[in-house]
């Protein structure tokens, strides 16, 4: 099909869909006045039942915790898949990585840059941990905290340069974090079964409302998610940034593009 015909086909389909969309939009429960009772029931019942302030966290880590387990596994699956795809061309062994090749141009950075980046990375990491820790009481939680913590790795990259960054952030450790976070989650789900309770039963003391420790098992699940997400996104960033470095023969990169010719002449 030529692009023109394809566009025409889409236009026809969308034109046919338009009246249906309008009919459905008119029949929807009015915006701002939903009729679904589940959400309001959660708001009414769960603070009492679980002693937590953040209802979204309660839904994510307790009521519908099993969804979150599937979601974490999905992330892990995607990261594993992306790793396989990207490493396929580079080879899987860490020790023959581009980052360890001798002769790579080291771009000098000002001491101030390095320092600022180190401080900022630490602060980002702490912020991420704090967001994750306060997941039961304020907006945030393991997922958001994990993403923020993982993005702190990027600041390290900016500051340390490639080689230093690679030694600071070993990908086996990230993979182990990702995997062990998910294992912890599976244990949270599976251990109650051994005691004869349903999976993911929240059997720990619930703690005090608005307290850092509130929600019982949710704390452990939250920590598992934080660990797994940090590992996953960290690994993802590492693998993608690795791609911007040329493996093997030509040590070209974004910053070193202009040096490319001279490098190749030398080798």
């Amino acid at each position, binding site marked *: 099909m030529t692009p023109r015909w394809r566009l025409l086909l889409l236009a026809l389909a969308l034109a046919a869909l338009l009246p249906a969309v309008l009919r459905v939009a008119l029949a929807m429960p009015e*915006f*701002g006045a939903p009729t679904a009772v589940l959400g309001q029931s959660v708001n009414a019942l769960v603070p009492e039942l679980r002693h937590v302030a*953040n209802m*979204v*966290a309660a839904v994510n880590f307790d009521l519908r915790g099993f969804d979150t387990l599937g979601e974490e596994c999905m992330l892990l699956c995607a990261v594993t898949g992306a790793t396989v795809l990207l490493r396929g061309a580079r080879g899987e062994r860490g020790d023959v990585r581009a980052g360890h090749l001798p002769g790579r141009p080291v771009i000098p950075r000002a001491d101030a840059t390095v320092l600022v980046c180190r401080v900022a990375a630490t602060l980002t990491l702490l912020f991420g941990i704090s*967001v994750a820790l306060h997941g039961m009481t304020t*907006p*945030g*939680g393991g*997922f*958001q905290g994990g*993403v*923020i913590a*993982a*993005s702190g790795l*990027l600041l390290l990259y900016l500051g340390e340069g490639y080689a230093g960054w690679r030694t600071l952030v070993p990908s086996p450790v990230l993979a182990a974090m990702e995997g062990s976070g998910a294992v912890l989650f599976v244990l949270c789900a599976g251990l109650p079964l051994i005691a004869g309770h349903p999976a993911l039963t929240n059997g720990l003391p619930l703690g005090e409302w608005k307290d850092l420790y509130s929600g019982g098992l949710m704390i452990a699940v939250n920590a598992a998610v934080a660990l797994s997400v940090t590992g996953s*996104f960290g690994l*993802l*960033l590492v693998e*993608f*940034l690795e*791609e*911007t470095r*040329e493996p093997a023969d*030509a040590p*070209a*990169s*974004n910053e070193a*593009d202009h040096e*490319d010719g001279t490098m190749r002449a030398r080798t």
Partner: protein
Amino acid sequence: MSGLVAGLLLLAALSGLLVVLARDPRRQVFAMAGNGLVLGLLFLALQAPDVALSEIAVGTAVTPLLFLAALAAIAMDRAKGRTEGRAKGRTADPAKDQAEDRAVDHAK
């Protein structure tokens, strides 16, 4: 509906359109980050701070970054391809294909 929510909804519709219309992938990345920010604000206005926080972390920071990294990798490969020539192993040699096919067809 408050004017704020309505305005942000319209802005989201507009920024989504811009993401699609930015045909150059590099420009699109910035449109995408903008779209993520608008969506984050919209979610905040819709009283969903948890979602807003993740959308801003993922939609305006991590995802655009992955796009930039991918684009850098692609640009590098293009540059390498220009210097080395394209034929080597990338596209199968059509002449060889044809010869092999003809031999097979004749076998019957």
